């Protein structure tokens, strides 16, 4: 077959794919039986119809009770330990810092071999931290190992193999020996940290996967064999770690890069945040897009969603935006109930990362203003 014939086949196949996707979308719209078919308001429509009242925050209900100062550059990523109140953060200053969230003290400051770090994660036991960035490598550090003669913590493992930057990493729950990374090379990888080798590669040049940089991963806390990824190709994909050759399902709908994905606490849904300014809630078993979270503004500025997190019950969705806002959404009624960005003592710049503590009692935000802040239910406490 000649190249010209192949190109013609390519064009025809692309048209067929687009047409099938359109038909699939129409069929799915017919299954949105709860409310208006024009906008995706399924959850909100159901909740209103069943008399759910909206969440109402008082002035001091959610307050900043800690400000973690120490980074000298933008904070890009943070992660809590699963069992204790420690946080690891990664910054443009080329360091990871491990914090005690209760006392604000720093327990470790790790100078990284490559300063261009984009992501960090705590291992389930809290003994290790992982990070990755523009060096295309995921580095592992053992927090209990002694420092070298220069006072730096040495890398205990380097996971090499990605052909693009490492945008996100997360340990597999309850396993200090496996983690999943996402990358600018369009793939996600499941790593065996003990051997340093790739167990599985999800997507890639000759496999069915993302067609652009992958920016975020989230592993299902209820079923650690499933994870979702978000990409510059405007889709999110659900993967089964046992089947690397193709995604279980692809979720369309966003009109821009999907910067962040996070599983809903029940493990059957997940949320996304995108450059199109919306957050969305998808169902993994049916593929339905259940809800869109978007606030119209009077100006033309598009606010990119940089990071999201769900509260432990799933009632609240925290979303950080590129303009410094941090909306707290009522997930059932799709209403903004609070803007942490407008509160007293809030960040002075974009919120780049969010994370909830393991017990759900505190939210940590990281910002381009170099600080991290911890928010908790305030009652009558003073703001510090």
């Amino acid at each position, binding site marked *: 077959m000649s190249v010209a014939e192949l190109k013609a086949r390519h064009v025809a196949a692309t048209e067929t794919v687009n047409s099938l996707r359109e038909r699939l979308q129409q069929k799915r719209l017919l299954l949105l039986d709860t409310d208006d078919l024009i906008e995706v308001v399924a959850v909100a429509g159901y909740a209103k119809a069943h008399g759910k*009242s909206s969440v109402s925050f008082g002035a001091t209900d959610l307050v900043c009770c800690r400000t973690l100062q120490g980074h000298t550059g933008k904070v890009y990523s943070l992660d809590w330990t699963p069992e204790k109140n420690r946080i690891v953060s990664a910054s443009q200053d080329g360091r990871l810092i491990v914090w005690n969230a209760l006392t604000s003290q720093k327990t470790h400051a790790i100078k990284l071999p490559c300063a261009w770090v984009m992501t960090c994660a705590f291992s389930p036991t809290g003994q290790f931290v992982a990070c990755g960035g523009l060096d295309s490598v995921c580095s592992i550090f053992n927090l209990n190992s002694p420092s070298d003669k220069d006072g730096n913590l040495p890398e205990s493992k380097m996971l090499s193999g990605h052909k693009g930057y490492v945008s996100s990493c997360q340990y597999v729950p309850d396993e200090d020996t496996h983690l999943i990374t996402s990358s600018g090379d369009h793939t996600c990888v499941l790593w065996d940290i003990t051997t340093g080798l790739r167990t599985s590669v999800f997507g890639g040049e000759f496999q069915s996967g993302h067609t652009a940089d992958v920016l975020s991963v989230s592993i299902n806390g209820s079923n650690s064999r499933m994870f979702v990824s978000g990409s510059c190709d405007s889709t999110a994909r659900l993967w089964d770690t046992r089947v690397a050759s193709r995604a279980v399902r692809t979720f369309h709908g966003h009109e821009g890069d999907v910067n962040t994905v996070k599983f809903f606490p029940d493990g059957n849904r997940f949320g996304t945040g995108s450059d199109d300014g919306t957050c969305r809630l998808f169902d993994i078993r049916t593929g339905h897009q259940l809800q869109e979270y978007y606030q119209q503004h009077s100006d033309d500025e598009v606010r990119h969603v940089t990071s999201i997190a769900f509260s432990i019950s799933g009632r609240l969705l925290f979303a950080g935006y590129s303009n410094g806002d941090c909306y707290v959404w009522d997930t059932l009624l799709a209403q903004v109930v609070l803007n942490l960005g407008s509160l007293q003592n809030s960040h002075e710049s974009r919120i780049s990362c969010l994370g909830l503590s393991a017990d759900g009692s505190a939210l940590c935000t990281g910002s381009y203003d170099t600080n991290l802040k911890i928010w908790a239910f305030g009652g009558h406490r003073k703001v510090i």
Partner: protein
Amino acid sequence: MAESYRVVATAKSGCSSSVPSLPPPCPKSPPEYPDLYGKRREMAKVQMLEREIGFLEEELKSVDSLQPASRCCKEVTEFVVANPDPLMPTNRKNRRSCRFWKWLCGIPCFNFSWICCCCYSGCSLRIHLPRCCDCNCNCDPCDLCNCCSCIRCPAPNWRCCSCRSCCPFPCSCSCCCPCSCSCPCSCSCPRSSCCRNISCCSDCCTCGFPSCPDCSCCRCSFPECSCCTWLCCCPRWTFSAPKCPKSPKCPEVRLCSNCTKTCCNPCCLFF
């Protein structure tokens, strides 16, 4: 082409009037070699698309058997309602009913401390064992509550601060100052000092160990040097002194193939 050259050579060497004269060689442009690498790439793309068509057709068949969205919404709503959430505010009805408890909680909490904790953390009418401290000083999340008076701490070398929480560090730095009360910062750890009465810094005054919230503890061994937050920054001519970290050059990264914005180039994040 080789054949035509051989025929001409034979004709010249033979040099006989019986050999017909051949037209002079006319060099042709080299034949077009097929771009095999490009063809293989194109073939791979077509195969991927055809595989995607198969997946979409499968999905179209299965869509009819999917449960409607209302069932998913019901599951979401039921899950949310069934699970308590420490970040959720109390509703007004509960707040009214808690006024009595708030008055009661104004007195020191002893055996009824769990009631106080429940009230302040926004309990519902279903009083359940709260996760804040129980005033036996299981105080790990204690300072996020506002209720109990700390009577005794779980470990001998812990201390109650006046702000009603326990400091876990064995060095007994009174670092519960994150509470909004004034705790005098006194560090009994060796080689430690207080930074602005906020925290204790171990090895604070060793440049490079960033325990302090600012560089006030940083001391450089060379008088010509000044403190950056982490390091001593010294003029170049200072012998063997560390240099301030430079901004590293952003390495080349491959842009997203379909990306029309620079945000897909993560280097832009670093500017």
